[in-house]
C-alpha cells in the first residue's frame, strides 16, 4: 500500500473561490492509502513546495497527489520538488481542478464534488504508480532551419555564432524572403535591402551554415536530438558550384514573358533567372515551365552563352539525408490574395493593388524603378485610397477572411501614405480603417506624423465598393464618424490584405508532428512562457509562422528560438521520457502487431529461451522496446491483444483505475 499525500492548491482564489478546498482535503484524506491531506494557498510557490517536501519527509510519503492547475503547467514543478526530497518524480500525479473545475463551474457544491472525484482518480492512479527512471539519448549537434526569410536567417546566424552547424532549407532559389521585397521599413524608414542583404551575405559566408536553396523538406523522422530529415533539392538545371552568377544567361534568354514573382507579377523576367541582384546564392535557375529548351528541346541559348558550362538540362531532383538535433520552423507568410473580394475590384481593375505590390511599385529595383506609376497606364496617380483590414479581423463565420488582426498593416500603410505624400505632395491619400493600431516603440508617433505632418486623410469606415469607370476608380465608402457616404474618384487603390501562413506550413507541421492552430499558425508550447517552442520537443518557432509579426519582433523571436536551440545542442545527452512502452516477455507471443503501428521503429524481436512446463525450455520470439527511441504514444499497447505491451506511467491498470474512480457510484 502506498503512503499518499494529497495537497489541494487554492491558486489564490482561482480554485478556492469555486472549490471548497477544505472539504476536498478532508474527503480525500479519508481515501485508502492517504496518510496526509492538506490545502494551501499556492502550492507552486516556494513555501508550497516546501510544505510538500516536509510532508514527504515527515509522513514517509511514497506517492503524492497535487490537486491544482493543469499538469501541463506545474507537473514538472511538483515532480522536481518531490525528487529533491528523494521521492521518485513519477510518483507524483496532478488532479487538474483549475482548468477542469474551478474555471468552468460556478456552483461550489458541484465543483467541489468534481474536484473530489478527480482527486480520487489521481489517488487511484498513484496507487499503481511505479518509480520510473529516465534513460538518455545523444544529441546531433546540428540544427535545421526551415525557411530562409529574415526569421530563418537570424536564427541560423545566431546558432552558427554559438559554434553549431546549421542548415537552411529554402524553397525559393534565394534566401531573403518577404523582407527582400520590401522597400522601406517602419518606423525608421530605412531601406529594407540595406539592412537585410548584409545578413544574407553573412549567411553565405558563414562556414557553419549550409544553404539548401530551391529545396524542400521531404520527410522528418526521429525525435528531439535525433532527427533524420530528407531534403529534396529541386533540379534548377544549373550547377550551383559552377555558376558564378554573372547573369549573362538571364540577359540572353529569348523567353522574356515570364511573370516576375519577385515583383509580384508586375513585370516579366526570363525563363532562366536570378530573382534579384543580391540573391544568395547568386545562382541562376531555369524555370522549366517556361524554358523553350525544356519544353521543345530547341533553344539552348543559355548553355551556349554560359562561360563555365553550368547549364545542365538533364539535372534531376536530389534527396539529401541529414541528421539534426533541433529543427526550427521559419516558414513565414504570404499576403492573402484578395481575389475573393470582388467588391474591391482587385480581380477586375489593374489599378487596385495589394500593399506588397505597392512596395514593388515604389522600390528603386522594382518594375517602375521606384517611380510611383499605376499599372494600367503607367501614369502618376493623384488620388490614392488605402483600404485596411482586407481579410483580417473577420467574423469567425465569415469564411472569406481571417479572424485575427494581421498586426503589421496599420504601420506599413502609414508608411506608404507618408512616403507617397513626401515624394508626391500633389497626391491626395485616403486611408480607410476600422481601428488604427500602433502599439510599438515609436509607432504612434509615426502614425501621427502621417496624419499631422503629411496630411494623410484617415477615415474611420469601410470601403463598400470600387468600380472602374474610364480609368477612374470610383470608390464608395462610409465615414463612420460623420455617418456620411463618401464617393472618391481614385487613381490607385491599395489593399492591406491579411497575413497568411505560407501554404507549405501545414505539410511541414505534419512532418514535424508540431501542432497548428485553426489558422495554420504553429502552436507554441505555452502561449506566454514558451512562445518560441512547439509542444513537440526539439521543434522551435521563428517568425510569422507562429503568428503575425513585424520585422523587429520577428528578429527577436528568431534570436530567442536560436537561444533555445543552442541550449539544446549544448547538451551532450538528453534525458528521455521514461513513460515508454515495455514488453512483458512472458506474455509476448511475438506476433508483430505492435511493430506495425510503431511510428519510430522502436520495437525489435528476438528469439529467446524460456522455461516451459515441467523443466523444459522453449524458444519464443518476443518483442523488446528501445526506450531511447520510443516516444511513449502507446499505439503498440492497444495493438497487443495479450496485454504484453504496456506503457509506463500510463499503464492499462492505471488508466482503468482512473476510469473506475471517475465512474464510481
Amino acid at each position, binding site marked *: 500500500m502506498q503512503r499518499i499525500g494529497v495537497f489541494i492548491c487554492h491558486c489564490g482564489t482561482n480554485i478556492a473561490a469555486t472549490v471548497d478546498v477544505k472539504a476536498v482535503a478532508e474527503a480525500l484524506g479519508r481515501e485508502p492509502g492517504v496518510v496526509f491531506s492538506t490545502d494551501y494557498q499556492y502550492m507552486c510557490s516556494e513555501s508550497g513546495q516546501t510544505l510538500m517536501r516536509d510532508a514527504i519527509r515527515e509522513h514517509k510519503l511514497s506517492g503524492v497527489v497535487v490537486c491544482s492547475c493543469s499538469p501541463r503547467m506545474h507537473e514538472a514543478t511538483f515532480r522536481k520538488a518531490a525528487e529533491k526530497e528523494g521521492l521518485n518524480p513519477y510518483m507524483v500525479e496532478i488532479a487538474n481542478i483549475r482548468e477542469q473545475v474551478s474555471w468552468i463551474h460556478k456552483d461550489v457544491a458541484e465543483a467541489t464534488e468534481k474536484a473530489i472525484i478527480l482527486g480520487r*482518480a489521481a489517488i487511484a492512479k498513484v496507487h499503481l504508480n511505479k518509480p520510473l527512471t529516465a534513460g538518455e539519448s545523444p544529441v546531433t549537434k546540428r540544427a535545421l532551419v526551415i525557411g530562409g526569410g529574415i526569421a530563418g536567417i537570424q536564427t541560423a546566424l545566431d546558432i552558427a555564432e554559438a559554434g553549431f552547424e546549421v542548415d537552411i532549407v529554402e524553397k525559393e532559389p534565394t534566401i531573403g524572403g518577404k523582407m527582400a521585397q520590401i522597400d522601406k521599413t517602419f518606423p525608421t524608414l530605412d531601406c529594407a535591402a540595406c539592412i537585410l542583404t548584409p545578413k544574407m551575405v553573412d549567411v553565405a559566408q558563414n562556414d557553419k551554415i549550409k544553404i539548401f536553396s530551391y529545396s524542400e523538406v521531404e520527410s522528418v523522422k526521429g525525435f528531439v536530438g535525433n532527427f533524420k530529415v530528407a531534403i529534396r533539392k529541386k533540379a534548377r538545371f544549373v550547377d550551383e558550384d559552377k555558376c558564378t552568377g554573372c547573369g549573362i544567361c538571364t540577359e540572353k534568354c529569348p523567353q522574356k514573358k515570364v511573370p516576375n514573382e519577385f515583383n509580384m507579377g508586375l513585370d516579366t523576367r526570363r525563363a532562366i533567372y536570378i530573382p534579384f541582384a543580391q540573391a544568395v546564392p547568386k545562382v541562376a535557375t531555369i524555370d522549366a515551365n517556361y524554358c523553350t529548351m525544356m519544353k521543345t528541346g530547341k533553344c539552348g541559348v543559355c548553355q551556349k552563352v554560359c562561360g563555365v558550362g553550368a547549364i545542365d538540362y538533364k539535372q534531376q531532383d536530389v534527396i539529401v539525408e541529414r541528421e539534426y538535433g533541433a529543427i526550427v520552423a521559419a516558414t513565414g507568410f504570404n499576403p492573402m490574395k484578395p481575389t475573393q473580394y470582388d467588391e474591391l475590384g482587385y480581380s477586375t481593375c489593374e489599378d487596385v493593388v495589394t500593399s506588397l505590390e505597392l512596395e514593388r511599385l515604389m522600390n528603386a529595383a522594382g518594375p517602375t524603378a521606384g517611380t510611383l506609376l499605376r499599372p494600367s497606364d503607367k501614369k502618376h496617380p493623384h488620388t490614392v485610397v488605402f483600404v485596411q483590414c482586407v481579410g483580417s479581423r473577420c467574423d469567425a463565420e465569415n469564411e472569406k477572411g481571417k479572424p485575427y488582426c494581421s498586426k503589421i498593416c496599420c504601420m506599413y500603410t502609414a508608411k506608404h501614405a507618408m512616403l507617397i505624400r513626401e515624394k508626391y505632395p500633389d497626391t491626395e491619400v485616403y486611408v480607410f480603417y476600422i481601428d488604427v493600431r500602433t502599439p510599438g516603440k515609436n509607432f504612434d508617433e509615426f502614425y501621427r506624423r502621417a496624419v499631422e505632418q503629411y496630411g494623410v486623410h484617415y477615415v474611420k469606415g469601410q470601403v463598400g465598393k470600387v468600380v472602374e469607370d474610364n480609368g477612374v476608380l470610383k470608390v464608395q465608402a462610409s465615414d463612420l464618424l460623420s455617418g456620411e457616404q463618401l464617393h472618391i474618384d481614385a487613381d490607385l487603390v491599395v489593399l492591406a490584405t491579411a497575413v497568411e501562413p505560407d501554404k507549405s506550413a501545414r505539410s511541414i507541421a505534419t512532418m514535424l508532428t508540431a501542432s497548428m492552430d485553426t489558422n495554420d499558425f504553429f502552436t507554441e508550447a505555452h502561449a506566454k512562457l514558451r512562445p518560441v517552442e512547439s509542444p513537440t520537443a526539439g521543434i522551435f518557432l521563428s517568425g510569422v509562422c507562429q503568428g503575425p509579426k513585424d520585422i523587429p519582433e520577428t528578429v527577436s523571436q528568431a534570436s530567442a528560438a536560436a537561444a533555445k536551440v543552442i541550449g539544446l545542442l549544448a547538451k551532450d545527452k538528453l534525458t528521455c521520457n521514461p513513460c515508454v512502452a515495455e514488453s512483458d516477455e512472458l506474455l509476448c507471443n511475438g506476433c508483430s502487431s505492435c511493430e506495425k503501428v510503431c511510428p519510430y521503429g522502436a520495437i525489435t524481436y528476438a528469439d529467446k529461451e524460456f522455461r516451459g512446463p515441467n523443466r523444459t525450455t522453449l524458444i519464443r520470439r518476443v518483442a523488446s522496446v528501445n526506450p531511447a527511441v520510443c516516444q511513449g504514444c502507446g499505439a503498440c499497447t492497444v495493438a497487443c491483444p495479450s496485454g504484453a505491451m504496456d506503457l509506463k506511467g*500510463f499503464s492499462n491498470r492505471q488508466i482503468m483505475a482512473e476510469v473506475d474512480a471517475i465512474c464510481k457510484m
Partner: protein
Amino acid sequence: MQDVNYRPKIVAFCCNWCSYAGADLAGSSRLAYPADVKIIRVPCSCRVNPLFILRAFQRGADGVIMAGCHPGDCHYTSGNYFARRRMTLLFSMLDYLGIERERTRVEWISAAEGAKFSKTMNEFAATIAALGENKRLEDLRCKK
C-alpha cells in the same frame, strides 16, 4: 421513469498534446461544460484501448468520448489514424450489438480549440442526458 436528479456520467479520454490542452484552453477561457464530464489524460488517442471504453460503461459511465489531435496533426505522426480505425470498428460493433450508438463518440480537438472542446462536451453531455442511463452495457454489481 427517469430519476429527476439523474446526472449522466461521462468519461472523456483526451490526448495530452491536443485535446487535453484544448480542455485547458477551454478552462482558461472560462468556457463552461457540464461537470458530468470527467477527463482522463492519455498520451495519445492511440493509447485508448477498447477495454477502457467498455470498462467505463461497466463502471457506470453513460457516455464515453475520445478526443485526439486532428488527423494529420498527431504528435506521434500516426497515432490518431490508428485510433480512428480502432474506434470506427469498435463503435460499429457496439451498434451491431444494439448498444446506443450515441453513447460513444470521437472528436478531433486541437490545443487551440478551447471553444470546440467546450461546445463538444456540452453537446455530448446533452446527448447523453437525453439518452438516460446506460442499461445495455451496465454491470449491476457496480451500482449502489
